[in-house]
């Protein structure tokens, strides 16, 4: 693709993006995940969409100039967003405060995160159980992951707990939290930063950044607690979970077991998982396309024993 057609392609992509059509979703799904544009430029010289050959190296460079996307936040900035989103989630859903159970899910969670497509985040992955009886789980950007006792009660064995954690790791891997930030705020944050990138901000810069930060936290928290992600994001996280479970040697049917349990426990019209997630049935249908017919999860005795010892009284 020569320079002028490349520009034309990018300009069209931007226009489609404004209209919410075509190229932008295609590009964002190609670029989603932990892989940044610069990594993409590394991976190969070109790819094809229809009869159009796209020069990835040049496009990655130019896209960075043309648009500001959540991919442009550094892992360090993602970490600070995640810390505050996590603190906001804990405002509503208080910690359970059970060191033994927390340690168990942290060892398991670390292992699962290491097997994901995004094993390294700025501050690493951290997991915490929340007191609530509601069925819910949350992933804040950068790897702060939370799940309620109500959610863990949907898990009759370790493979099902692993499925819950792996699904949340999937949301982190695909930066779904950051994608909830309004584009105007992303642009405002990254444009201001590109020009005035000082470590210690002056009063005026700080006031502007602080306002954008607060808005971004509100966008993400509202999506996590009130509105929920789109079905396609949930599907992406489920697929990431299946792949993580397979890589670590868990039975991916742990996810099916958990969803089946959830179906029997969810209260229609409640404010929890039912309000923010697609129905278990629709998720089950999507999942089974990938892992085939359900087979009962048989946990080895030692695995079941440690699960019971850590979460048996949850």
């Amino acid at each position: 693709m020569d320079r002028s057609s490349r520009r034309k392609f990018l300009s069209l992509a931007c226009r489609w993006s404004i209209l919410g059509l075509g190229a932008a979703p295609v590009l964002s799904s190609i670029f989603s995940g932990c892989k940044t544009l610069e990594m993409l430029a590394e991976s190969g010289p070109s790819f094809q969409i229809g009869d159009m050959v796209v020069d990835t190296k040049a496009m990655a460079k130019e896209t960075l100039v043309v648009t500001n996307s959540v991919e442009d936040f550094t892992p360090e900035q993602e970490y600070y967003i995640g810390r505050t989103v996590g603190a906001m989630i804990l405002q509503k859903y208080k910690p359970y405060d059970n060191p033994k159970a927390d340690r168990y899910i942290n060892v398991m969670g670390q292992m699962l995160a290491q097997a994901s497509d995004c094993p390294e985040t700025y501050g690493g992955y951290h997991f915490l159980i929340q007191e609530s009886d509601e069925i819910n789980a949350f992933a804040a950007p950068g790897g702060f992951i939370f799940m309620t006792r109500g959610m863990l009660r949907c898990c009759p064995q370790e493979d099902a707990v692993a499925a819950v954690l792996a699904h949340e790791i999937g949301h982190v891997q695909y930066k779904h939290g950051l994608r909830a930030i309004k584009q105007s705020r992303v642009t405002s944050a990254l444009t201001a930063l590109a020009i005035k990138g000082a470590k210690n901000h002056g009063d005026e810069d700080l006031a502007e950044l602080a306002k954008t930060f607060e808005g971004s936290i509100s966008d993400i928290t509202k999506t996590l607690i009130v509105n929920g992600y789109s079905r396609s994001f949930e599907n992406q996280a489920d697929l990431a979970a299946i792949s993580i479970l397979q890589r670590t040697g868990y039975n991916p049917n742990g996810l099916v077991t958990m969803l089946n349990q959830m179906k029997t426990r969810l209260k229609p019209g409640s404010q929890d998982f039912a309000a923010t997630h697609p129905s278990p049935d629709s998720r089950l249908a999507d999942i089974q396309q990938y892992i085939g017919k359900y087979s009962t999860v048989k946990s080895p005795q030692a695995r079941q024993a440690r699960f019971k010892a850590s979460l048996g009284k949850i």
Partner: protein
Amino acid sequence: MQKMMSIQVKKSAVRSSPSFLGKIVTHLNYGDRVAVQNAKGSWYFIDGSKGKTEGWMHSSSLSLKKIVLNPGASDVKQAASSDEITLAGKGFNKQVENDFKSKNPQVDFMWINKMEKITISQNQIQSFIKEGQLSPTGGK
């Protein structure tokens, strides 16, 4: 051809093989520069100090940009006109978090700090895999 990259996370593992099951030989820190010599899937074989620190790192810990840890005025000027430099601590940072905390004193960060203090060693993970009779197949 060798390509220079930077560690973009606080601390990252260097492993003996291109998999999360690979033994950790050392760790590198935010801003450290490495020479990438080879790639396998999402894993890069790197040299961190002229042959003394060699091993595999996951691409999620690496950036093509040079990361300036304590940027001065000239770095800021250079960063404004270049997309090859990242200034550590810019943008959403500790200072912005502190500003948020002062305006929202009811939001408690105690448990977030506590979460970050839980550290899990590679030995604990290995024992967890063994005890649970898990047979990992490795990553991408």
